[in-house]
């Protein structure tokens, strides 16, 4: 076992709604080693964003433990949390709405430094801004431009620079390239990977794009209605998917090649409601293999081969 940076135990986040309790994140546990990337995949509404945000305590978890470098941060008070946030950052999905339109590039990157009271000297701080711009590949001449003058790729670079400003150890990347064109997407993915290697960062990479997550992550967790249904090293998950949902998800990726086409597994229906789920397998209603046990008893995430976890009654 390597150096564990993050350990999440039985994390739950429920929201009260007029129609019942919405189980956005329902009993998730995992550990993440320093310098590694965990990919979190799933379809809209499966709770991946809420999971990422509760780990940072941007939404308050309902219950569970989040150990960051051994410290349970769910018990940290406001001041301690402020300190911890320097180490734990977030990159947002939409570079169009996550930046203040009235702040120039340098002001946007400077903001977190100012808030943390780092670099009290103006010149030092500006030097750090330029350094960060260099790291993320933003030209120095753009220092006084506003977000609306820049394209999506450059805006996302600002978002990354802001996240890096405090020298964090851990970043939750919430669909960082989904809003970008493919040619730009590749630039940003390469940049994030380089930065990770240089600075030894640990990522949670949230996405719905399986080809991107495969490229980017060491391990992948597949989420369905607030739960992990399968978790395995990336290569293992792609070569030997076990959960019926993972199989369908993988086969649904349109492959940009005329050769080695795969057999498509179509799953019927659509994601069901996460409000007051019944105590059964949450995928059972859409699953071709479901039997009475699946409809009566919730499967537990179990290790079927080293590091390969799956929650399905049908996998022996």
């Amino acid at each position, binding site marked *: 076992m390597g150096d564990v940076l993050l350990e999440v135990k039985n994390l739950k986040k429920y929201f009260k709604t007029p129609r019942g309790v919405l189980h956005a994140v329902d009993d998730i546990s995992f550990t993440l080693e320093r310098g590694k990337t965990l990919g979190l995949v799933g*379809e*809209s509404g499966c709770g991946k964003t809420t999971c990422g945000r509760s780990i940072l305590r941007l939404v308050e978890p309902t219950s569970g433990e989040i150990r960051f470098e051994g410290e349970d941060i769910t018990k940290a008070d406001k001041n301690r949390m402020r300190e911890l946030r320097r180490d734990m950052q977030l990159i947002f999905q939409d570079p169009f709405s996550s930046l203040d339109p009235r702040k120039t590039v340098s002001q946007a990157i400077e903001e977190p430094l100012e808030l943390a009271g780092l670099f009290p000297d103006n010149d030092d701080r500006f030097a750090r801004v330029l350094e960060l711009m260099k790291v993320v590949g933003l030209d120095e001449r753009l220092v006084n431009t506003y977000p609306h003058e820049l*394209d*999506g*790729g*450059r805006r996302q670079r600002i978002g990354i620079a802001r996240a890096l400003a405090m020298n964090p150890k851990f970043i939750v990347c919430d669909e960082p390239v989904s809003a970008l*064109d*493919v*040619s*730009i*997407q*590749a*630039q940003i*993915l*390469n940049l994030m990977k380089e930065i990770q290697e240089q600075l030894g960062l640990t990522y949670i990479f949230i996405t*719905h794009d*399986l*080809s*991107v997550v*495969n*490229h*980017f992550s060491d391990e992948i967790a597949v989420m369905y209605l607030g739960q992990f249904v399968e978790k395995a090293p*990336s*290569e293992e998950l*792609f070569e030997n998917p076990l959960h019926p949902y993972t199989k*369908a*998800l993988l*086969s*649904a*990726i*349109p*492959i*940009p*090649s*005329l050769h*080695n*086409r795969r057999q*498509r597994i*179509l*799953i019927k229906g*659509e*994601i069901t409601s996460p409000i007051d789920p019944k105590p059964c397998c949450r995928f059972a209603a859409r699953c071709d293999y479901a039997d009475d046990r699946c409809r009566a008893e919730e499967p537990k995430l179990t290790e079927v081969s080293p590091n390969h976890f799956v929650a399905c009654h049908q996998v022996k």
Partner: protein
Amino acid sequence: MADKILEIRDLVIQYTSDKDVVHAVNTIDLDIEEGKTLGLVGETGAGKTTTALSVLGLLPKQQSRVPQGTVMLNGRNVLTLPEQELRKIRGNTVSMIFQDPMSSLNPVMTVGDQIAEVVKIHEKLSDREALQRAKEMLETVGIPGDRSVEYPHQFSGGMKQRVLIAMALACNPKLLLADEPTTALDVTIQAQVLELMRGLKKKFNTAMLMITHDFGIVAEVCDEVSVMYAGHIVEHGTLEDVFDHKRHPYTQGLFDSLPNIDDRRSKLKPIKGSTPDPVNLPSGCPFHPRCEYCMEKCSKSFPEKRQINDTHYVYCHLYDETSEDQLKYTEQEG
């Protein structure tokens, strides 16, 4: 050779504002034969949607200009047709599915009424007959007919997109323009909708223009593909031509930017720089500032069309000196 449903020649479209001219589409040719599907691939701002809107005669009148070109739809030039004629064509000969199913439906009208409305405009049917047709169309796209009395908010995203497909196909159009129809959907739902579209295309023999940025979708539903960059179609061919014998550096760059699902160790090779501002396009070949093979003449003149075989052409100076024989595919490539 089958009949051509759509034949676009030398089309130029510009948008004008107070001080700027946006060069959205710059001299393109585009053909779709009956029952065939053409994929139009390109990044944001390449001019894909503008091209589609011109086929419907839906370009904003005040802000757009079409200085040259013809758009022949079923033998008639839509650019010169009066509004009254256009209205007869829209939804009947040609219809369109938009990217965002959430905002393309009327929230205060039942989906059945919305489909029936289209039918009644084009065909002499009573209200009841039109509603009956609406129900049949819903069944065709896999939605139970009795849900026709429900409102859009009662449907999920994938279902809404099915409703829009039902609406688009209600009058059995000859040509369907699909503008990123699955971009807003999750992968498993996308797979369902693509499967549905493939089936319907066969059933109704509808020709289709599939606008997308995803070569994966092209591989699944298209017969031919045009790659668009900065308002130009820079490469065009059958799927085999473009996927296995791509010639244009931009096409190559797009493929290299995609993560390879079978080889996760392969490094992504992005295209440097970013897409040009259509107000201020680079001189010569608009791709030259980002092209790794850029030569001196690339910034000076736009390349000539080079026909590689009957179905495959490319606009790139790299092939100016290449002889016909050299351009043909060799055995090793395939």
